[in-house]
């Protein structure tokens, strides 16, 4: 009985805290994405413009995001029936977008980021993911 109460509390805390945290995070991601709209990060390796280059720099950004308990239960139920697990989709989406934003933040003054690569890895079995974004920042001669 005590176990059941504990479980319900964990799910409840997970649902309310998790939803709030996610909403706040998405708001912050969207704000910062709008701020960095001037700095394109592309997956191609070649520059379109033929301008003199001052320097290049390897830049990276990473983020480890944990899922909440409510989503763990939700995904667990999904595992019985199969199908799309949207609870984990938003987790990965947040981690990747956050990593790309951190990459852009570390490339102050750059003109373009070439060959953007995103890699993910599982940190723990409990459901936290790391996303790593890296690329080559190009600075044109001013």
């Amino acid at each position, binding site marked *: 009985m005590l176990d059941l109460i504990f479980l319900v509390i964990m799910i409840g805390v*997970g649902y309310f805290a998790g939803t709030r*945290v996610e909403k706040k995070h998405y708001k912050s991601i969207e704000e910062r994405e709008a701020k960095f709209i001037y700095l394109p990060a592309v997956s191609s390796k070649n520059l379109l413009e033929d301008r003199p280059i001052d320097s*290049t720099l390897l830049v990276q950004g*990473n983020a480890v995001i944990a899922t909440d308990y409510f989503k*763990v239960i939700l995904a667990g139920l999904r595992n019985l029936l199969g199908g799309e697990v949207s609870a984990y989709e938003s987790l990965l989406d947040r981690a990747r977008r956050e990593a790309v934003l951190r990459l852009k933040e570390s490339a102050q003054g750059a003109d373009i980021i070439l060959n953007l690569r995103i890699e993910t890895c599982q940190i723990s079995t*409990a459901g*936290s993911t790391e996303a*790593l974004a*890296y690329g080559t920042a190009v600075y044109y001669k001013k």
Partner: protein
Amino acid sequence: MILTNIESTPGKKIMEHFGLVCGSTVRAKNAFKDMGAGLKNIMGGELKSYTALMEESRRQAIERMEEQARQLGANAIINVRFSTSNIAPGAAELYVYGTAVKVE
């Protein structure tokens, strides 16, 4: 040391190739920090201590790779790639590799 993850160093010509260089580090998580992470796993959100740990470990792997390149007489590393593998529960290997070159 110039690092890029493309096959060239834009704006600079490659003079000489030295072959593959790599650096790796295996890190285990801190059990005390992991207690905080356990709480975060209920509430959701970013695990800041893990983000910092991974960043720091990756920097160490890059330093090791750069050291190897320096010994070969290179001054740039092109086509840098990162890779992560879980070798045991709670421990991860961070591996970075690239091609050491000499640019003008």
